[in-house]
């Protein structure tokens, strides 16, 4: 990752304000310019530039051989990516929406994640699968899924989700440069929020503290990071100082960061959009309970989506953890044991 530089002509000062969608587009463009082996393909990524315009103008810049539309079949997209990687390319396929990763599940789990293993390193899979993910935009069915728990369980995969434009840019560059397959979950609800993207990536492995605090730690990723920061803002008005830990990498999980933060605060609330049962919050709560055993002042709380299919637009605000539900969770960890 030494060469993670924004292109000079696009960021003469090294700092610019971009939306996450723009930052991702810039990351793809810069990665393709630097490495001629990078390929971008998927449904509607070419002339259209993707339904979220994350691949905007890449085809005109890099040509139809390096940026191309495929037929409408997600298993086909990932299976083709596996073959392209076998031929020495560095594919960055897009799955148009989270819910449409399921048809590709077999190729991801049984092929992409295992080819390096199966071939004992002869056929590495430097593939970054971009997936516009999570809910919050009133989209139709299957357009609001949280996939991290599924993928974080798959041996051979790494999973990451950025929470702001700066991370989006640098983590995508990092993921593309990785020699291992990375599932890159883009929080589509944050595509249009602007933020500063600086030339200096900062550390790209592990978690980051999005907001420091000392009474309890909120653990989140993707769009929930901004929401947790909002919660922390509100809580601060009441004198409660919440730390927000932006996990970023969902596999591997940054265990030292969890131990450090929650070891300090003694209280943790995990926030995710996915359903509670079997969600990544379980893994996290298990790790925290183990790493901070004896130092926890309250059981780890999980404020999550319910154990229900991701609902229609009207009901998504009831489903995704909102400020109030997170505050209730915070209150539970703060008041625990006080009777």
């Amino acid at each position, binding site marked *: 990752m030494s060469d993670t530089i924004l292109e000079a002509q696009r960021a003469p000062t090294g700092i610019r304000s971009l939306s996450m969608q723009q930052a991702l587009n810039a990351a793809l463009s810069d990665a393709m310019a630097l490495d001629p082996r990078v390929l971008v393909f998927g449904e509607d990524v070419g002339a259209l530039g993707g339904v979220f315009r994350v691949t905007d103008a890449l085809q005109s810049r890099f040509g139809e051989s390096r940026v191309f539309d495929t037929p409408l079949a997600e298993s086909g997209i990932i299976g083709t990516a596996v073959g392209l990687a076998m031929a020495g390319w560095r594919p960055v396929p897009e799955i148009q929406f989270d819910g449409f990763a399921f048809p590709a599940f077999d190729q991801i789990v049984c092929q992409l994640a295992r080819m390096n293993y199966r071939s004992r390193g002869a056929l590495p899979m430097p593939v970054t699968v971009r997936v516009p993910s999570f809910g919050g935009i009133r989209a139709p069915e299957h357009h609001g899924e949280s996939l991290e728990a599924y993928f974080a369980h798959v041996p051979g995969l790494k999973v990451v989700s950025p929470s702001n434009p700066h991370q989006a840019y640098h983590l995508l560059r990092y993921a593309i440069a990785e020699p291992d397959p990375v599932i890159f979950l883009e929080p589509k609800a944050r595509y249009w929020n602007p933020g500063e993207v600086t030339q200096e990536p900062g550390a790209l492995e592990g978690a980051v503290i999005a907001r420091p605090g000392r009474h309890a730690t909120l653990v989140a990723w993707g769009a929930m990071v901004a929401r947790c920061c909002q919660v922390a803002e509100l809580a601060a008005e009441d004198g409660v100082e919440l730390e927000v830990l932006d996990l970023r990498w969902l596999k591997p999980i940054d265990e030292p960061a969890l131990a450090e933060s929650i070891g300090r605060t003694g209280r943790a609330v995990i926030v995710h959009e996915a359903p509670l049962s079997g969600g990544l919050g379980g893994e996290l709560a298990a790790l925290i309970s183990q790493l901070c055993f004896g130092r926890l002042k309250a059981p780890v709380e999980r404020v999550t989506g319910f*154990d229900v299919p991701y609902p229609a637009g*009207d009901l998504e605000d009831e489903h995704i953890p909102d400020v109030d539900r997170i505050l209730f969770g915070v209150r539970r960890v703060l008041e625990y044991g006080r009777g």
Partner: protein
Amino acid sequence: MTTPMPDPSGAPVDDDLLRRAYALMVVTRALDTSAVTWQRQGLLPAYPPLRGQEAAQVGSVLGADLTSDLLFPTYRELGVAVAADVDLVGYFGNHLGHWNGGLYDPVASRLAPIQAVVGGSVLHAVGWALGRALDGENGVAVAYLGDGASSQGDVHEAMNFAAVLEAPVVFFVQNNRWALSVPLHRQVAGESVAARAGGYGIPGLVVDGDDVAAVYRAMRTAVEHARATRQPVVLEAMTYRRGPHATSDDPGRYRSLADEATAGADPIDRLRDRLTASGAADESWFADVDTDATGRIDALHAVLVASSPRPGADLFEHVFVHPTPQLTAQHARWREESDRV
């Protein structure tokens, strides 16, 4: 291996049927156009217009027998819903963001829930048709799919399963030449989905999807063939997606006006000309149809505007017939926390 299929031109089409088709197509067009407006006005979060596919959709439903058959729609099947006389308030429940799949009764309506996975319901049609056949019933399943959907593995599995297991399914392909931004020749190798039927030893038919009479005849023939023989049929209606993929789409990014011009004459105009030429309808009849359509749409609009979201408690209903303790506990906490806010 292909069983020969009766010639579709043999199925009779009378003026009555054509007038019925015309009225349904006009209602569909008016509703579709209104829905785009409603989306602009913020009533619907998004809407996928079917403009140009009215003949294909209406003709296909008229060719089926809704006393026995079941239709498996995609997300772009408003004309099917109109022709099948589905409760449109319930149908728009999907597009309003009230409930994924719609709020109409799929069993009574003979229309399976709206399906948002491309190719997702095609296998269900196979299973359902097989199930009816196992019951000794005469039901034919109509699986709606697009040119883009034909690329999905599930669609191949469905055609092969239907042929091997003898499930009476009509795979009704609306080949509208576009799958979002991808044109037919970059999607369907060989450029015809019906041409794939031969590879399964089943009949494949191509029809002018903008000629409602032709669609009706072909559909009728296909449905009756499937019913009589339990052999599935691929029926491909050639048409053109005249609007954007959905209200959020910007076709200017990927297709030219020249391409759009290849769509040819509008299917409603074509039918109107035919009815006029044959004397089966006149200006005043057409005007009445328009008035009726407007009336229906205004009435529907009033109901949709007044319709409210499902209560939050609906989140927890119907996940299971027998809910888990976890879900019940989550429901209880949700209620408690909503009350306390």
